[in-house]
């Protein structure tokens, strides 16, 4: 059991990060924190890919370095995914700013009260 956890520690960390991200997204009443939760959720998945590319004692996939190389493909994917994540965060925060300008609060429950009387 311990062996399983240690030999796959990054995957365990991935799952825990997904769990923390989910928790923050659901539990936080503050909209900015929800967006932070979304970011943690996404980085958890990035870790999954990068860990899969790793090989014990491997070098970065630069061909002038000695073999073994870690796999370059997941790195490429995650570079793209990081950019996607920032883009989403930017748009989400834009919405947060709009909501604040409109309702004067970022608290989910206060927001519901304000909107209830809309």
């Amino acid at each position, binding site marked *: 059991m311990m062996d399983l956890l240690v030999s796959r520690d990054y995957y365990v960390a991935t799952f825990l990060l*997904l769990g923390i991200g*989910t928790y923050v*997204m659901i539990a936080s009443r503050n*909209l900015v924190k*929800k*967006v932070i939760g*979304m970011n943690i*959720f*996404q980085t958890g*998945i990035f870790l*999954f*890919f990068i860990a*899969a590319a790793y090989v014990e004692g491997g070098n970065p996939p630069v061909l002038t370095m000695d073999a073994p190389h870690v796999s370059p*493909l*997941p790195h490429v*994917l995650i570079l*793209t*995914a990081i950019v*996607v994540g920032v*883009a*989403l965060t930017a*748009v*989400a925060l*834009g*919405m*947060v700013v*709009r*909501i604040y300008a*409109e*309702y004067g609060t970022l608290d989910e429950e206060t*927001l519901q009260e304000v*909107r209830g009387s*809309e």
Partner: protein
Amino acid sequence: MAVSDLAALVVALPIFGSLVAFLAALVRSKSGWPVAVAATAAQLAVTVTLAVRAFGEGTITYVVGGFEAPYGIELVVDGLTGTMLVLIAAVSLGVLAYARRAGPRSNPFYAVFMLLVAGLTGMSVTADLFNMYVFLEITGLSAYALVASGDRGRSAVAALKYLLVGTVGASLFLLGVGYAYIDTGTLNMADLAVKLAANGYTATLTQTAFALIVVGLFIKVAVFPLHTWQPDAYAGAPDTVSGLISALVSTVAAYALLRVVFTVFGTAFLDANPFAHALLVGGAIISILLGSLLAVSQSEVKRMLAYSSVSQFGLIVAAISIGNVTALTGAAVHLVGHAIMKGGLFLTAGLVATETGARSVDEYEGLVKRSPVGAGVFGVLAVAMVGVPPTIGFAGKWYIAVGAAEAGSWTLLAVIVGSTLLTLAYFARLVERMFFREPTADLEPAVERADGALPDGGDLGGSDPGSASLGMYAAVVAAAVLAVALGFAVFGYGDVLQSTIEALLS
């Protein structure tokens, strides 16, 4: 297999159109509309050419950059893809005709509009799982922004919720792709299919990949109970945008689901994993039943239509779970039919709001006297949605039901056939109010316009606010005519689609 670089052009063209629409603001502000129309018209021409070739010559492939398939990113256009491409372009053009008067008019709006077209097109043509994720996010980003383009605070709240839930969906999809990738070391769909089969269909990694991808796409399709973003988003968005995204976004996500389930995992996987089959069947039945029940209980027309989508996409998922030629043809027919009917209904709801200010079910009382065209089109589309023959709503349901009978899925058959009554339940109460009641309250035509919160949003094109434009009428009437007329074209379409579906299932 034919090779054509048109497959890459259909993605590049709307991106280019978006850039031009964006930059056109340098010359003149509010110049986005003509650019978007030109780009979408060109897009329609290219997609029709591509679809005709895909149906005529068989599947078209293209590997971007000239590399070989599993190493480079492959684009594939078969009959099903062709259908989606034409649908995306045609619906966008119809919505643009409507948007001229109704919609937000800033240049960035049209730039994002074109990006949505690009994202949806990319999702349809790609044959690479990670690439599909990228386009899924482009689609998502533009859809979130479009929902937020309404000038009410409600739009922004709905959009943020849509963004958070949608991102979880896309991320679960990505995690599923990760599992499939760790399992096989490849991302190309065809290559994945071969390697997953070699690994055996009961491998935990394969099963997990399936479950995550399906659940991720369920969120995007808005299958119950993962639909929570949808009613808010559709109701909070400006009318133009709800017409567009209700017609296309879930549709293409459902197409992606179909594509991934059959191209990557295949029927053999479903046969080997009862849980996978149960996941699809369960999602389908719950969506059909509860979506309709929630639709009946809504007081706002656009929310009612949104829940109706939950129910209708249950039918599509049902077709996917049945997984034979007839049912999948039905899925394709119903995807197209639903896009036309539901897009048309949302646009009609917008037209009605523009003319009379009515937005809630009660405000629709006596509508026929105040907005005869709106009420008439709404009535026709409602009848089509219920599935009265010979409309396309009937045709889709018929194919799926025959597929269910062929497969011996009697429970599904009963639910599919019975869903007619559920659909009737929420449309009948609206139709009754529109035609057989006197208007009770005097409403003002929609003064609050979904104008993208333009600081100078007072410009209404020199017309009074209560009137709808010719383009708006044309768009909704076209939807009603198509909903009836396409019912007669379905058999011919099913015939040419058959080889595509057979290839998909083999």
